């Protein structure tokens, strides 16, 4: 017991000093640590949203939507490629039922040619060489193109990656600071924005797919049919809430439109004539050329501006628009126009996202929680410290010293891992105070016991540490097991609790057993007491 080599003392002291040093930046949140010398660490603990205030939003995509969009794109490419083939391949009876695309080749001699056109469309770009789509020919002339599961997975994965980027751009455009945007699982994205004034605006922005389309209006369609939602062949019906004609819907040509994903810029502006808020968009070269062609060929006809499946407006094409820029009018307020331009600038979401979980904490409540948590922690710790000294005297003081170090160490370790402190995490701190002293209680009670049995001072201390260690070890392992399960299955703030608990268990075993043992050994060696007040 008395044998405590110098190298051990030094390495334990260094380790403790390092932990305390790492904890310092976190103790001075905010501005003050900007002025610190550069050699000091600057990693700090993150404050959870429940303490800092802010919004946590969980978005989820429906994989079926991705599949549907993908099928639609496939149909469009098949139509385009078959038309472009030389000689042109006539196809008909196209359907997208049950998640598969099927069509008939009208001329049975062109089946092989059609297959050749189809092949390159259905091969995946992946390294596995797996096909994205299966092609099947039934009854000689009917092609059935069905997505493979690998292809679909890949598509969902890509869509989610793109969606995450789009979300990040949108939030950056809003000018919020330090947002966290993480993909979670296969179809989810977590968005965390601290200290947000208006979470509603954020949700609105995130929920917008921002898929912009320009399509020609089918003005030959029967208005009664349109009102009932029926469209003539080759057209489709979209809702049009601001329709000047009073109909709730409008029919547009299925083909020949262009999509608005080829933009270089979008910004809010005002219509020079009416002074109404509008969104000005600028196409890239390719999009500009397509838009020029569309307007050139259709002067005098109206085209519909469609956002996320709803028609915003259907202006007449008075003259060809060749400059590559256009103006989107719709019944906007300035703010709406602003939001739409942000959404358009950051690109369309490849898949619709829905908010499945939202947690917003006001900054006042967060600050209140920190304040109350601190007060409770200080009072609780002080009471435990006093209790330990009254009960174990010098040994209680050692335990308290270890406990104080332990608190610094937990903060330090959390800072190293950039862990997040949440409100339940503060509770975890206070509980760690309560349970960390348990190790010392076990040791000290055992020393008392051994003294009663008549062991001499040094021997009693020795046996006390040795016999108590076994129970301390077993008890802490089971606590770690509970903590790990909490970490694995828990979410958000509860995870923050598990982190504090697990780190606290590890550091407390170190301080409560190793550090106090060192302190006691050094004291015993120095004074060689014959009696022990414990």
């Amino acid at each position, binding site marked *: 017991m008395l044998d405590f080599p110098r190298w051990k003392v030094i390495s334990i002291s260094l380790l403790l000093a390092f932990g305390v040093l790492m904890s310092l930046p976190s103790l001075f949140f905010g501005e003050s640590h900007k002025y610190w010398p550069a050699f000091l660490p600057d990693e700090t603990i993150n404050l959870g949203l429940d303490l800092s205030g802010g919004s946590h939003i969980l978005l989820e995509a429906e994989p079926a939507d991705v599949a549907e969009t993908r099928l639609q794109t496939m149909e469009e490419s098949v139509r385009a490629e078959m038309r472009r083939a030389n000689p042109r391949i006539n196809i008909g009876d196209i359907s997208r039922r049950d998640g598969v695309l099927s069509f008939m080749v009208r001329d049975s001699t062109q089946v092989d040619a059609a297959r050749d056109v189809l092949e390159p469309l259905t091969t995946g770009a992946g390294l596995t060489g797996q096909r994205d789509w299966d092609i099947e020919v039934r009854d000689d002339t009917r092609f059935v193109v069905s997505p493979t599961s690998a292809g679909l997975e890949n598509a969902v994965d890509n869509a989610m990656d793109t969606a995450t980027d789009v979300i990040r751009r949108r939030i950056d455009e809003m000018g919020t600071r330090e947002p966290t945007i993480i993909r979670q699982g296969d179809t989810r994205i977590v968005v965390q924005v601290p200290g947000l004034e208006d979470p*509603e605006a954020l949700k609105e922005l995130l929920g917008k797919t921002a898929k912009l389309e320009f399509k020609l209006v089918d003005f030959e369609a029967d208005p009664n049919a349109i009102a009932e939602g029926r469209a003539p062949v080759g057209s489709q019906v979209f809702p049009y809430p601001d329709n000047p004609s009073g109909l709730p819907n409008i029919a547009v040509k299925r083909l020949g439109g262009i999509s608005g994903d080829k933009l270089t810029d979008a910004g809010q502006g005002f219509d020079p004539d009416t002074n109404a808020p509008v969104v000005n968009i600028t196409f890239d070269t390719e999009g500009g050329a397509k838009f020029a062609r569309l307007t050139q060929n259709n002067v005098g006809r109206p085209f519909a501006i469609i956002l996320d499946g709803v028609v915003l407006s259907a202006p007449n094409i008075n003259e060809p628009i060749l400059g590559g820029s256009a103006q989107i009018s719709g019944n906007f307020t300035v703010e709406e126009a602003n939001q739409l331009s942000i959404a358009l600038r950051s690109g369309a979401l490849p898949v619709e996202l829905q908010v499945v979980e939202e947690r917003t904490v006001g900054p006042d409540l967060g600050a209140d929680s920190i304040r109350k948590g601190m007060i409770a922690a200080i009072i609780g710790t002080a009471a435990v410290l006093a209790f330990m000294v009254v009960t174990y005297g010098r040994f209680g003081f050692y335990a308290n010293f270890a406990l104080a170090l332990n608190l610094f160490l937990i903060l330090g370790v959390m800072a190293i891992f950039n862990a997040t402190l949440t409100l*339940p995490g503060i509770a975890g701190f206070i509980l760690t105070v309560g349970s960390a*002293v348990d190790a010392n*209680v076990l040791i000290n009670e055992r020393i008392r016991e051994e003294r009663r049995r008549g062991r001499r001072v040094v021997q009693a201390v020795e046996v006390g540490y040795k016999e108590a260690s076994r129970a301390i070890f077993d008890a802490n392992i089971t*606590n770690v097991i509970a903590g790990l*399960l909490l970490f694995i299955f828990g979410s958000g703030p509860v995870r923050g609790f598990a982190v504090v608990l697990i780190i606290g268990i590890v550091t407390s075993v170190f301080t409560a057993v190793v550090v106090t043992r060192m302190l006691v050994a050094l004291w015993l060696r120095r004074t060689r007491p014959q009696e022990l007040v414990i």
Partner: protein
Amino acid sequence: MKLLKLVPDNTNIAFLKWRNIAVAISILMIIGSMALVAQRGLNFGVDFVGGQMIRTTFTQTADAPITELREKVGALGYGDPTIQRFGQPNEVSIRMKLPEGADQDPELANTMADQITGMLKADYPDVRIDGVDSVSGKVSEELLSKGVWSLVGAMLAITLYIWIRFEWQFGAGALFALFHDVSLTFGFFALTQLEFNLNIVAALLTIIGYSLNDTIVVYDRIRENLKKYRKMDIIALLDLSVNETLARTVMTSLTMLVALIALIIWGPDVIFGFAAAMFLGVFIGTYSSVYMAAPILIWLKVGPDSFVPPEAAGGQAEKIGGPEEVG
């Protein structure tokens, strides 16, 4: 300096004398808790049933007008709200079920929240919106199943660990004690109708960990004494072990309680339920270590041979085996 001794030296209380009565009471309590949960149900928060919770503080009013709020929110046509105080009398939470069809169209939930907060701000100028929690049915189902799995997983993993470190009887005893602790905590929440949310799962797992602490300390001493006093009657031995560790049990429980009282009185209101559950858990956990975990060892026939034979036999085999190998 005279130091405080909570438990006098050489305390010898015949704890195990009351084991049959204690276990009978415990079993009754478990059954009672289950009946309470079945009959009254748990007051699940939005975490586990989905819906929306709006937390508000009336900054200028001493008492939040709960009855009036209930009528006004009810008049919005989204069904009856659950309105509860939390912490101070001027702080309330308004809980709503998500409107029909909100899983398909989250916009509906937003509209509902907007209408409620709009009404609050218009009718009560001093109201401060402290937070909005909105959880869809799908996510709440996941949170619930994750919560259940973490509890079940923790109990089984810990039991397994004790089985490996001690003997199977000890694992069974620990599992039974844990079952007791968890059941009674559930019963407490059914009785008080405190909100049962994610934080409470964290509290339950902490209670499990804490109760195990106690159980292991007692078990560790039983194991030690079983090896030391091979002729001692098992009941006397268990009593001795519990008494020898009693000072530690009392001291640790008290430090935990001191920390928890600080949390309950001065801590943030949001975690009141958590702290209350833990407070109760300290008592239940300590009790179950003495009266559930220990007596089971008698019925599962733990004796001095539970630990000694494998070790002794192994040691002898080595001694006998040694020379033969050399020869």
